């Protein structure tokens, strides 16, 4: 089993940390993982993306051209990565601020209005957890328990109190994700 994911959005949306959580969770489930960010000054304000691979075998290249799953959080990234999803793969996007929606027919497209939901829940910071929840609903590769374990590993001790809130967001994400095609 190998799952190759791209998560793309802009800095401040928690793109890199969402990837990190997936990777850590994969580790908890005893899989091979690879997390490869785009890095640099783009981290402040510009676009940010991260490639995450979870696999039951040794991972060869951490750099990919095609992905099983694309998680897209803004227009620019949608434009850039829609065509990078493998035929038969899935694309999940947040509809906030999106004007040109995805058009491909050979992949499965999901929409999750996580930004909206986060501001409704009054916890902007859990935005990326909502998205993650949605993803895990579609691809239940990792159990929620392991995600929580991964969270514990990636968050500093003093933030562990936030974990229940994040768990709630995960679950909320599972609820609100919807298939478009």
């Amino acid at each position: 089993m190998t799952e190759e994911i791209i998560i793309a959005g802009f800095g401040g949306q928690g793109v890199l940390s969402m990837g990190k959580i997936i990777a850590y969770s994969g580790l908890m489930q005893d899989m091979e993982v690879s997390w490869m960010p785009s890095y640099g000054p783009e981290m402040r304000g510009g676009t940010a993306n991260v490639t995450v691979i979870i696999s039951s075998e040794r991972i060869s290249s951490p750099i990919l051209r095609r992905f099983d799953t694309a998680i897209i959080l803004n227009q620019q990234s949608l434009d850039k990565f829609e065509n990078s999803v493998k035929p038969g793969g899935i694309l999940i996007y947040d509809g906030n601020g999106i004007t040109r929606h995805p058009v491909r027919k050979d992949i499965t497209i999901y929409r999750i209005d996580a930004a909206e939901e986060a501001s409704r829940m009054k916890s902007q910071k859990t935005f990326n957890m909502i998205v993650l929840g949605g993803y895990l609903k579609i691809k239940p590769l990792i159990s929620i328990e392991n995600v929580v374990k991964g969270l514990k590993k990636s968050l500093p001790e003093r933030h562990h109190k936030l974990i229940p809130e994040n768990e709630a967001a995960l679950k909320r994400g599972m609820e609100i994700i919807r298939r478009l095609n």
Partner: protein
Amino acid sequence: MKGNEAIAEAAIRAGADAYFGYPITPQSEILEYLMAANPHERTGMVVLQAESEVAAINMVYGGAGCGKKVMTSSSSPGISLKQEGISYIAGAQLPCLIVNVVRGGPGLGTIQPAQSDYFQAVKGGGHGDYHLIVLAPASVQEMADFVELAFDLAFKYRNPAMILSDGAIGQMMEKVYLKPQKQRSTEVPAWATTGKTKERERNIITSLDLDPYAQEQHLLRLQEKYREIERNEVRFEEIMVDDAEFLLVAYGTSARVCQKTLQLARAEGIKAGLLRPITLYPFPYERIRSLASHMKIIVSVEMSMGQMVEDVKLAVNGQVPVYHFGRMGGVITEPEEVLEYLKTKI
């Protein structure tokens, strides 16, 4: 754990005595991790942010001269600034570890990963006749493992060692098993400057010999050491070479990419194999030479204009055609591109 962090943690665990460095992307996490991990309390390891790369490498010289396990890290432009110091360390035969997390050059270039410092690391970065022992990790695990290996080789041969990584492996996170904490060594090498006791002659750390005949003798001893390293320390990994007709040679990130290429190629029935040099110096000339006779063509895959390809050609010595393929300037070569290129040459 990120590759950079793996290096830092592995250094603490390997019992490193000191780190001296100056921030530069994409490797600042090494210093940052060390500062946060507070190794001074854990093991007594000294960590100091120097005022420049030049100061940092000369701090390494000083610490190494005391027989300590000392390291520095930087990325391409910073490594260029260290060249005089590196040449001094090689000339004075001091063991140390230098990490280069390569980014695209020349000049300020880009902060994205590249492999364009191969020549600098393996041929002549600094002035004079010398060699660094150069290790090229291809995973976060190797980032960690090679720290101890590099220190061991450096001390075994009294020679500076370099880990030649790149921004991709430095920034990438994967599973890594770390060795348990080692005690910092209390052994003092016989040549180290730790204060002249009555029991021994004074120790001098220098690379100077005004008399050219004495200097030549020194160089002949160096040369002998290099021959010994070349005999003993060549390391490489082979993947699917046994039945291969087309050999890819690649190190570091490119080797990872090529591994994927192998899968794609084999899926199409193309018999490709991969030789991954782990030590860039000493380079696996012999092995490539003997493999070459079974191959139809050989492609050196590097993220550069083509540097290691010269060593591959020197190894092959005309037996079969040798080509170079790779992206540049911070663009990471993709597995599919390598396959496409390979197909044009078949």
